[in-house]
């Protein structure tokens, strides 16, 4: 153990830290009751506007995780959210720009 006089500066640091922590808000949030606003650029989940989509299938070809399946007849666009890695490569590839990456996480009830 160091001699007692060496502990004095440590004690002062502790007291300072104690007062600072008392006057500060906690660093954590009570998630899910309190949620932070998502950042505008965040890649949260993928959505599609089916009215604009031409079902060309380019997004499915580009998808690195094979999460998209597109069929021309009957017209269908299916996303497997468990395979999707949220890279937004499909959004960039889409010729009609019908897909968007929303900044918030996908909710189970949505």
């Amino acid at each position: 153990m160091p001699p007692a006089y060496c502990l004095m500066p440590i004690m002062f640091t502790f007291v300072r830290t104690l007062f600072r922590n008392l006057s500060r808000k906690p660093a954590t949030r009570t998630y899910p009751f309190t949620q932070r606003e998502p950042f505008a650029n965040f890649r949260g989940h993928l959505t599609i506007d089916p009215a604009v989509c031409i079902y060309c299938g380019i997004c499915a070809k580009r998808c690195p995780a094979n999460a998209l399946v597109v069929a021309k007849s009957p017209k269908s666009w299916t996303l497997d959210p468990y395979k999707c890695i949220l890279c937004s490569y499909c959004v960039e590839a889409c010729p009609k720009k019908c897909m968007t990456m929303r900044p918030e996480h996908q909710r189970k009830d949505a």
Partner: protein
Amino acid sequence: MTRQTIIPFGPQHPVLPEPIQLKLVLEDKKVVGAIPSIGYIHRGLEKLAQQKDYIQSIFLIERICGICSFLHSMAYCQGIEEMMNVEVPPRANNLRIIWAEMHRIHSHLLWMGLLADSFGFESLFMEIWRCRETVLDIMEETAGGRVMLGVCTVGGVRRDIPPELIKKVLATCDELQAHFDHFIPSILNDYSVKQRTVGVGVLTKEVALERGVVGPVARASGVVMDHRVAKYGAYANFDVEPQIEQDGDCYARSKVRVRELYQSLDLVRQSVATLPEGEFNIPVKGNPDGEVISRVEQPRGEVLYYLRGNGSKFLDRMRVRTPTFANLPGLLAMIPGCELSDVPVIILSIDPCISCTER
């Protein structure tokens, strides 16, 4: 002769974030040898990368490591660009450095927290990880992901950082510096931390060179080795001085990483200050052909990518030599002679990333 006992350390152990097993040979409480066994999380990513086209592979390669993901994609993209003779726009180069150095900061902070946790300093661990959230937040705001940024691509980057976010990046740098000044004296000067790190797991310069260790482990043993000095990408515009220590123990490795935190902050600031205007991405045509070796300095050391293209959009071969793979022989030289209770600290002092190593 003292009786020898072999005890397994890992693959599941409280201090190990990832599975690796070391069979420790003990004489009483002293460790006299260690036999490693890896292979618990091999995912076959190199083979899978050959089945995806070279652009899709970027997203896959980013997932080789969950900590220094951006630097993996950067190394890969640099290799493909060299093969295809693509000149990356200067703005993209600077943006890459901003994200790369942020990744270094968050990786070193993660390691520092885990080290504090490994010797039972829980409050320091929480303090450091709270600081790490600041870096993750700014990466999320600028790139769209906390760790998997997904911004690096062949021919530049996929996103620009607009001027209002650039200001925020600089403000974050100041905030981080204040955080560092607050908790770093606890790591470098604290009596209990020094007790657990000074003189523990010594790796001499000769052994470091012989075993071919890289990154902060090599630099802490006095080996001047930092690939950023080779001035790849936008590092050509900056002077990076390798942070060297001579002692080669856990404390020296901590000191090297602490100084690299400040150095990375400085590089982010310099990169922002010299950020050129213009495009950040150029369209790339054709397919990679030929073979190339690409090297990038990651937080743990130098990563080496071997890429061989055949003129089609699929690569013939991709091979990765990760820094932890190079540091494992060094680790085996550090362990003999230490106490059993020091083993977790020594293992963490090389900052092991087993997912990278096994891919």
